[in-house]
């Protein structure tokens, strides 16, 4: 149960942008992010839209855009993934379940996309496998020959899921699998992800839907302004007393008022020297303004807040 699949260590992702001619500008989207996913475990990373969650997924698979750089280590089964290594195992041991139907080639039948670039006998075998997994997720035979624009929302999601899972990967990175789906499809998706976990796969679930995270995940990482500020067991989210970070606490307390929707966190645009939550924190001290807290272990959880430095010491 506790065999480690993915471990992300102090990863930062930034972009080089050219503003006004030749002036280079570094835009840091993710800072010092650490988390890990074990076999048979679902870890959710919860953050608002546009906060860089998809980029983390892309960094794990080695498909960041050209102007993006990724520092820190991403390890798979305790082995650091170099770009070559990522290229070798992506689509085989690690797979991505993408966000929307836009991730399918508009001019290619879905079955052709699912099987990938195979020829001859391999192709027959691949098509058989593809049919098998499409049936497993309730896709009728007619769907094989459809083009992406002909799929309904629920069908598209199933196609993306089965296409990603065709190679029977061990680690699944699911990027926002639920938005835009009707209630029935959301339920199905939740079931599908739970089943992946039962099969012993590790799942990194990227979402901005706290309810989905609470329902599926074993642990939840809270992503705020480019930083992971807390990683805690899902059961602890039922009781704010067991949560650590002031932001997480206020987030959960505010849920009933906000109709159980995640509030858009106020995210500082400029890099601050101290704690990113300083401006909104009710328990801040002067020390927090100039000194950045590190993500440290606190029991089973991880926390990024100076209040817990002392406890640990």
């Amino acid at each position, binding site marked *: 149960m506790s065999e480690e699949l993915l471990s992300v260590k102090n990863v930062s992702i930034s972009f080089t942008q050219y503003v006004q001619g030749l002036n280079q500008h570094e835009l840091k989207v993710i800072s010092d992010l650490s988390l890990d996913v074990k076999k048979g475990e679902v870890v959710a990373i919860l953050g608002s839209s546009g906060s860089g969650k998809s980029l983390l997924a892309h960094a794990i698979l080695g498909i960041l855009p050209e102007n993006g750089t990724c520092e820190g280590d991403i390890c798979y089964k305790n082995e650091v993934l170099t770009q070559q290594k990522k290229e070798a195992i992506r689509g085989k041991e690690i*797979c991505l379940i993408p966000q929307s139907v836009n991730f399918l080639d508009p001019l290619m039948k879905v079955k052709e996309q699912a099987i990938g670039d195979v020829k001859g006998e391999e192709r027959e075998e691949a098509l058989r496998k593809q049919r098998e997994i499409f049936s497993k997720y309730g896709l009728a035979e007619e769907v094989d020959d459809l083009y992406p624009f002909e799929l309904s929302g629920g069908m598209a999601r199933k196609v993306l899921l089965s296409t990603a899972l065709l190679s029977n990967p061990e680690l699944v990175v699911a990027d926002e699998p639920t938005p835009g789906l009707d209630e029935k499809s959301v339920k199905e998706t939740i079931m599908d992800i739970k089943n992946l976990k039962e099969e012993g796969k590790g799942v990194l679930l990227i979402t901005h839907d706290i309810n989905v995270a609470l329902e599926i995940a074993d642990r939840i990482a809270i992503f705020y302004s480019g930083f992971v500020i807390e990683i805690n067991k899902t059961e602890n989210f039922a009781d704010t007393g067991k949560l650590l970070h002031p932001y997480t606490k206020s987030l959960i307390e505010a849920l009933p008022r906000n109709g159980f929707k995640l509030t858009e966190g106020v995210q500082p645009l400029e890099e601050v020297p101290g704690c990113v939550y300083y401006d909104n924190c009710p328990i801040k001290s002067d020390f927090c303004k100039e000194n950045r807290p590190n993500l440290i272990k606190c029991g089973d959880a991880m926390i990024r807040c100076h209040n817990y430095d002392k406890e640990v010491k």
Partner: protein
Amino acid sequence: MNNRTKKFIRNKAIHFILLMLAVAIFSFILLELSPIDPVNAYLKQAVISPEQRLILEQYWGVNQPLTTKIWGWLSNLLQGNLGNSLIYRVPVIDVIYERFMASFVLMALSWVISGIIGFGLGIVAGKNKGGWIDKLVKLYCYVLQSAPSFWIGLVILIIFSVELGWFPIGMSVAIGTLSSDATIWQWLARLVLPTLTLSLVGVAPIAMYTRNELVNVLSSDYILFARARGESGWPLIERQALRNTLLPALTLQFQNFAELFGGAVLVEQVFSYPGIGQTAVAAGLQSDVTLLLGIVLISAVFVFVGNTLADVMYYFVDPRIRENESFDKN
């Protein structure tokens, strides 16, 4: 034939009729307003008595009201009668047929050559975005797009005919005679340099467009997902990017029929190639109104065909639109 196809054909037919009518009336009025006097053109400055002149003016219908003239011309046109050419002294339709065939060979060759080479260069450039091949292709496109095609033609003429002496300069057939006497080899030799020029010029827009289109496709989400599934390199481009680039590129190439025709007019002039463009210039210079009107009509038909083919590409080849029943635009 399904409903959509019927609707498409019906719409196109209406388009075509309206376009032809508009072009016919418009160009007729323009020529009427121009200082061309058919009697003078016919006489070529010969001196005649006023009585003889009056007879000629009546023959040409010079003093009839404009509406009568247009009506007369249109009703002849509907019967397929475009009148007689003043300078060739044969029916306009015969002149156009022969000359247009010559131009058609030139344009078709250039269209295919520039299309294939342009698309190929665009793909190579886009795949190596930012590399030296990309820069080279871009440079070529910028230079060619900013240089007028008759200038390119002159440069080629100087290189291949004057400097290298591979082809004779100006193998023109005297204006006013049809060129059926020329042997097939003479004709082929005549074809080489204009085709080269038009192809060189035609490569630029299609290469640039293909390159940008491929760069866009390669940064799309579906390429990202394909890469995440382990596809990479040339097979990835061939399987997914090529199709998504080819369709818009081909559509553009069909839409370029108008530029192709314009380029042909100039290039034929430079190389004295006996095509429709050269004939148009001759007809203009020598006030051959009937021939000029005929040429305007045939060029409108040509451009219309290009645009229709582009629409066919768009509506019937692209599966996204092919299966979309709500086709009620146009």
